[in-house]
């Protein structure tokens, strides 16, 4: 006896995409479809559910090959608009990290630092078609005699530029409060004293890994929307932690799975790859990502029906606990409550503040839907899925 009542393969779904008969809905639309039709009915009807997220993700950056020039050079130090890139790679390869600040930035010497320009901004400027000042130094070798290089380059002048985010799409995250008596500036935004606000970052029910909590369809080779172009999941992300405690529906209660994603920057669009400055913390990059989830069976239909009420998030103190490595939480709220704008915390109404753009995530989920329906964006069947622990 088959395990499921509905059984679809990637090939069957891709054939439907090619013939134009595919049924694609967003993860938010799927909630009501499963309510109406039940998981089996929904699985029969829907082939693909699109998920998305658009938020700052510090673990981002770009592998850039600047191309050779004459005389040849083996770059050992590289800067783009005075932002250093790591060049300990082959002759003209480097990695430009999103959180790398501009070299003359005062950082946090003037508290809280503004971090107006960093690696993420360089990547955005390149995508926006702007000229970026490239400077490189070398010690000179027989085969690569040039010791210095300085020129203005545009994205089109670079031989290759590949976005490579070792971590993205965090499956669940903390809700941050500050229990000290002073305002603090964190990667979770500005936190006012005595829990004056509660910050969170997720697209909740639209977020990719909440819709496939046990990574049954996501792994190496999953084709995704990345920064407005086509990208891939290439590995499990750094800090991937599938063994986090879960709810009955399989939703992890603390930060859990992550994905490693890559894509060709030359295909991307500046509005989906945006350099950000986090006051008192540093530079980062907001990357738009959309992941299609194939509805292979009724189990996947049920998973993709996850809604904000189903997702618990732990409240963590970033004033004292987090910096001191104290693993403690102050209870749970749901994303539904957080999105509502106000939570009850320690008997007090506390306004909630998102850092992840849900409205932009909705746009991405719609674009991905359009790609699949109209532009024959087929699903990439993973070679293997992410580790489940």
């Amino acid at each position, binding site marked *: 006896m088959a395990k499921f009542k509905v059984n679809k393969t990637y090939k069957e779904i891709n054939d439907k995409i090619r013939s134009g008969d595919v049924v694609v809905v967003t993860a938010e639309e799927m909630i009501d479809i499963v309510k109406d039709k039940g998981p089996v009915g929904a699985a029969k009807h829907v082939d693909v559910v699109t998920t998305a997220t658009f938020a*700052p993700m510090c673990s981002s950056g770009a592998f850039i090959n600047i191309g050779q020039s004459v005389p040849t050079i083996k770059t050992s130090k590289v800067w783009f608009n005075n932002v250093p890139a790591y060049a300990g790679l082959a002759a003209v390869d480097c990695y430009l990290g999103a959180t790398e600040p501009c070299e003359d930035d005062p950082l946090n010497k003037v508290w809280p630092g*503004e971090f107006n320009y960093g690696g993420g901004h360089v990547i955005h400027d390149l995508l926006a078609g702007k000229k970026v000042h490239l400077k490189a130094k070398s010690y000179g070798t027989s085969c690569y005699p040039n010791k210095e290089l300085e020129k203005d380059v545009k994205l089109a002048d670079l031989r290759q530029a590949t976005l490579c985010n070792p971590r993205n799409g965090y499956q669940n995250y903390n809700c941050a409060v500050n229990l000290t008596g002073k305002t603090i500036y964190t990667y979770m935004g500005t936190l006012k004293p005595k829990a004056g606000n509660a*910050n969170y970052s997720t697209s909740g029910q639209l977020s990719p890994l909440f819709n496939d909590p046990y990574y049954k369809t996501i792994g190496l080779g999953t084709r995704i929307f990345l920064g407005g172009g086509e990208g891939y999941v290439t590995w499990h992300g750094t800090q991937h932690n599938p063994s986090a405690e879960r709810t009955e529906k399989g939703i992890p209660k603390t930060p859990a799975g992550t994905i490693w994603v890559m894509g060709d920057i030359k295909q991307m669009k500046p509005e989906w790859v945006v350099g950000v400055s*986090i006051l008192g913390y540093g530079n980062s990059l*907001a990357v738009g990502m959309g992941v299609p989830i194939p509805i292979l069976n009724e189990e996947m239909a049920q998973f993709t029906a996850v809604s904000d009420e189903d997702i618990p998030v732990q409240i963590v103190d970033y004033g004292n606990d987090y910096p001191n490595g104290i693993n403690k939480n102050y209870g749970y709220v749901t994303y539904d409550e957080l999105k509502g704008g106000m939570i009850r915390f320690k008997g007090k109404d506390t306004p909630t503040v*998102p*850092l992840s753009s849900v409205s932009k995530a909705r746009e991405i989920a719609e674009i991905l839907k359009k790609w699949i329906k109209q532009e024959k964006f087929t699903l990439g069947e993973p070679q293997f899925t992410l580790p489940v622990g």
Partner: protein
Amino acid sequence: MYSKLLILHFSGKEVEKPVVSNLTRYYDLSFNIHKATILPRREGIMVLELSGSKKNFKSGVQYLKDQGVIVKNASQEVTRDEKKCIHCGACTAVCPTHALAIKRPEMFVIFDKKKCSVCELCIRTCLTRAMKIQPISETLFE
């Protein structure tokens, strides 16, 4: 009661006239001087807040202009670069007047300029630097 922050530029000649006290004597206006400097070439710059009835304010400014003083509006406003805003919501943590707030369920960040107190807290909190402070571009009497 009408009140505006003004920047006055006096050339070397006007700097000797008691024009500001005349605003009070002839036009029933009150002023609060925030800054006054005389530069090496004898020209002066003054930043002052001028308050009174709208009619008197208008006449007073006209008087200043007649005396050869260059009058500029020093008031500032916060604006949003709509192209840069990614509607994340980080700014809503610090906005004290709820001029920046989230519209639900769409989850758009709306900016109601009328509620803005020009505290400028959003400017550095905004992740994409979409919020800007700039001089009010409108002319003085509109």
